[in-house]
């Protein structure tokens, strides 16, 4: 599980081009949107594609993403339960 979380953090940093952030800077429960990492709706769309491409999870409504991307912890839980690859 913690492996998946580390993997997700690295992917978030790379995919979203968060140049000044390292894996160690993101705590499992940090808010990804709003006050935490300050991600926005474009980032949410990027993460939706990542879920599809890397874990075989397809979301049709971007609003669903907002709940799943609350934190790395929530994301990891969701992926563990729904992944098809």
């Amino acid at each position, binding site marked *: 599980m913690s492996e998946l979380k580390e993997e997700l953090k690295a992917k978030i940093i790379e995919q979203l081009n968060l140049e000044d952030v390292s894996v160690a800077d993101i705590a499992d429960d940090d808010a990804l949107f709003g006050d935490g990492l300050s991600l926005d709706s*474009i980032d949410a769309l990027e993460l939706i594609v990542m879920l599809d491409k890397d874990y075989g999870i397809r979301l049709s409504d971007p609003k669903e993403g907002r709940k799943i991307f609350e934190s790395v912890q929530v994301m990891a839980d969701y992926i563990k339960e729904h992944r098809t690859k």
Partner: protein
Amino acid sequence: MKKVYINSIASISPQKTFDNNLFLDEITDYNNTVIFAQDPDYKQYIPPAAARRMAKGIKMGVVASKIAMDEAGIETVDAIITGTGMGCMIDSEKFVSAIIDNNEQYLTPTSFIQSTHNTVAGQIALGMECKAYNFTYVHSAISFESALLDAKMQLENDEAQHILVGGVEELGAHTTKVHRTINHIKPEAVTISEILNSKTEGAVFSEGANFFVVSNEKKESCYAELVAVETFNTLKKEKVSETIESFLEGNNLKAADIDVIVFGNNGDVDFDDFYNQLSEGIFNKTQQVFYKHLVGENNTISAFGVWLACKILKTQSIPEIVKINEIKTSEVKTVLCYNQYRGQNHSLLLLKKC
């Protein structure tokens, strides 16, 4: 009708021009067919969170706009008007190649969003929180002149007091390769000093951003009065002299009244005759200058010509490196810029000392 002044300038180009205290004091020589802009310290101007999605063109545009705003000493403007002939090439290439390479699957939105032509103007507005008029002109070599014309009309009619106007282009690797295949880029590397005599077709491609604050009130920092700007979609070689003379006549001037003429020749053997005929013709007794040997060719590089004219008018000096001929002028009061690209999209721009 109000007069229009260029109150500040900013240039990011293949030369070190982003420092307004300098005027081509140090020249970087190139021996290439494609030359890139010299980067200022972008981080000094753009917060990392905002910069993370920006390709080079957007960064250059945003930083050039900040330099111009700082020099004009204003916080906001009544309009932001940009010109870009090719738009955001890097993100466009990224998205097109992703569509093809991944067969339309797993595409992400960022490069698509960043690829639209008005990205730079939109990002400048976003950064400045400026809700004013916001236009982007995308018409090849007259993109910048169209922006300037729009600004000039609004200022003359007093619909706006201060307008940020700029031109920006970035190089995209694939687009560069593609333009080589049709010989729009020179076949062999050339140095600055060789370019006009290269006798080969094509130009040295480049990138950069040139921004200006134009206002209908003269500020302390004023560089020039923008008297007239006109563009022509087509113009036959035989008609250039006549067109320039009638343009000057419309402004109560004759060719002999021009103290400095700024030419847009780029060393393309097929098209430099548009300028050469003027060098030897109506402007043979006029001080002639050029700049594309220093900063290359792109769709809005004529804005660098305006930058050069502004610098000459304000400093009353002409660096040797830009001189085509040597004519003694006691005072530079009136400057004309003429540019065209591949025989199309001609522009004339008249500036006076302020």
